[in-house]
């Protein structure tokens, strides 16, 4: 796509560099002249918010690793040392642990936005699938990070999650022993989780690079789901328009992030994780971090080990197939009256599953979790394929400019 301006170096050094590594003109095309649809709303600032969170997590993580000891007899104490002795250690750790929650909060909004406005539809399938891969990497990174403080919830969370692999027929037990590096979660497990927890964010950064690359090839989707036809009429240059809007989005998001760090830093954590890991005693109620709860609820709602594990992974894997499960020709939910209703039912289902994942697995909670699990899968496997065939959609504007002018 042609941008709003071209990069024309005047400075001699810049010309010299351009002839050898055109990084400045590339940045200009990508982040200055790049045409962004005129009609983007604030839900579109979450991409920038997520980039910010990734950088924040990497920076706080790298400095925390300077004080942390990945050894099972010292890990817990080293985290307490960070909290009490290390200069600003408490703030860095709270920023990192709450940063994970903020990162997931933002990614869930980003994903729901993508679903509502049909951002996964052609030609953005690869862009969407790269996003699902980033989500999976985030889950692995978040899980392994939660194990590092080596508290009770760290240890037993690690035990439950690694035991998911023991459900694999025939080789499950060997795979779990291999993952642990022993016969249970122990020092070798902690050590490798630390290594991978340090590695994966950089893998995420690389896939984010691909994600942004794919985005810049196909262009951004927008609330009306119409592609840019005339760059001058339908779009505005990324800088200053998107840059400023994203900055405001990040600033507002930072208020929430800072509120968690400075006022309720342990609200999203679990008190049991301030008890050192004890392999001989399971806490009475094991709960994963909040961002895994909907999937945990699906796992527990099925009274068969293998089927439960398969359903949980399927719930995530299905996201990658969205571009083909949704049969509607109309991209944006804005012009799909029935889809809108089902979208909000789906959102309520996901939040409901999250609530049930935190409740004990008994009585009415189990029944409710089963109903909501059915609702979750029905959205992907029944509603979306059928809706595209039967739904009567509203007329879609011909261009973004038309959509914008119609409002004024």
């Amino acid at each position: 796509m042609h941008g709003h301006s071209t990069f024309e170096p005047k400075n001699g050094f810049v010309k010299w560099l351009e002839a050898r590594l055109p990084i400045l003109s590339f940045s200009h095309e990508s982040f200055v002249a790049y045409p962004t649809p005129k009609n983007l709303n604030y839900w579109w600032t979450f991409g920038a918010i997520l980039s910010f969170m990734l950088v924040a997590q990497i920076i706080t993580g790298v400095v925390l690793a300077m004080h942390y000891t990945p050894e099972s007899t010292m890990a817990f104490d080293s985290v307490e040392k960070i909290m009490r002795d290390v200069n600003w250690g408490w703030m860095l750790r709270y920023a990192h642990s709450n940063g994970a929650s903020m990162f997931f909060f933002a990614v869930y909004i980003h994903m729901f936005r993508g679903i509502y406005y049909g951002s996964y539809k052609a030609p953005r399938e690869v862009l969407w699938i790269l996003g699902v891969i980033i989500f999976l990497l985030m889950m692995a990174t978040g899980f392994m990070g939660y194990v590092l403080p080596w508290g009770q919830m760290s240890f037993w969370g690690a035990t439950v999650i690694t035991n998911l692999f023991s459900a694999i027929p025939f080789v499950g037990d060997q795979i779990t022993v291999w993952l642990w590096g022993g016969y249970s979660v122990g020092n070798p497990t902690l050590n490798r989780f630390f290594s991978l927890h340090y590695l994966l964010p950089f893998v995420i950064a690389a896939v984010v690079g691909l994600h942004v690359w794919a985005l810049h090839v196909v262009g951004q989707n927008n609330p009306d789901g119409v592609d840019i036809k005339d760059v001058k009429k339908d779009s505005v240059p990324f800088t200053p328009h998107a840059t400023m809007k994203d900055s405001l989005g990040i600033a507002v998001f930072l208020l929430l992030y800072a509120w968690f760090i400075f006022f309720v830093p342990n609200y999203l954590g679990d008190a049991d994780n301030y008890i050192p890991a004890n392999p001989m005693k399971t806490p009475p109620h094991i709960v994963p971090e909040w961002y895994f709860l909907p999937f945990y609820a699906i796992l527990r709602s099925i009274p068969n080990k293998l089927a439960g594990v398969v359903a949980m992974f399927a719930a995530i894997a299905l996201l990658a197939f969205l571009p083909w499960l949704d049969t509607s020709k109309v991209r944006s939910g804005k012009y799909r009256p029935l889809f809108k209703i089902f979208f909000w039912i789906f959102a309520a289902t996901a939040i409901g599953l999250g609530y049930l994942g935190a409740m004990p697995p008994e009585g009415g909670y189990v029944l409710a979790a089963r109903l909501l699990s059915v609702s979750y899968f029905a959205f992907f496997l029944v509603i979306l394929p059928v809706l595209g065939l039967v739904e009567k959609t509203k007329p879609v504007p011909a261009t973004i400019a038309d959509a914008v002018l119609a409002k004024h």
Partner: protein
Amino acid sequence: MASASTVEPTRRDFLFIATGAMAAVGAAAVVWPLINQMSPDASTLAMASTEVDIGSIPVGQIVTIKWRGKPVFISHRSPKEIEEAQNVDVATLRDPQPDSARVKKPEWLIVIGVCTHLGCIPLGHQGDYNGWFCPCHGSVYDTSGRIRKGPAPLNLAVPEYSFLTDTKVKIG
């Protein structure tokens, strides 16, 4: 490359495939140590067995010892518990196993104290069958450590063990 006009494999095709196959074998040989390093190391394997003095365990008590980083339950069963464990129609069980296949001496039940669902530690003398109850996801085991209710697929595992004397057991 084979010329376009012939379909016969040439000597060059053979060399190409043979070289490629060797490269694949070489790559696999390099990757294997990188994968296998994650398996339990020599020091972990060296701690694979442990000896326990069971003489001091009174009837009706369950003692938990640590073996390979995991709890092992040693249950000194009462006659009532033994009877309950034996008087079960094996065919009705999820993981059918007679009590006799799970013990060497009926009064001593030795099982790994790890729930076969997702690895939590069940609580002794609890649950509907007075065996074990797992607080995580509600699996219920009987006095033979067999799964009776809940999501776990298998009975509590019986480790390899032997009686060295009447009061000494070697586990592993």
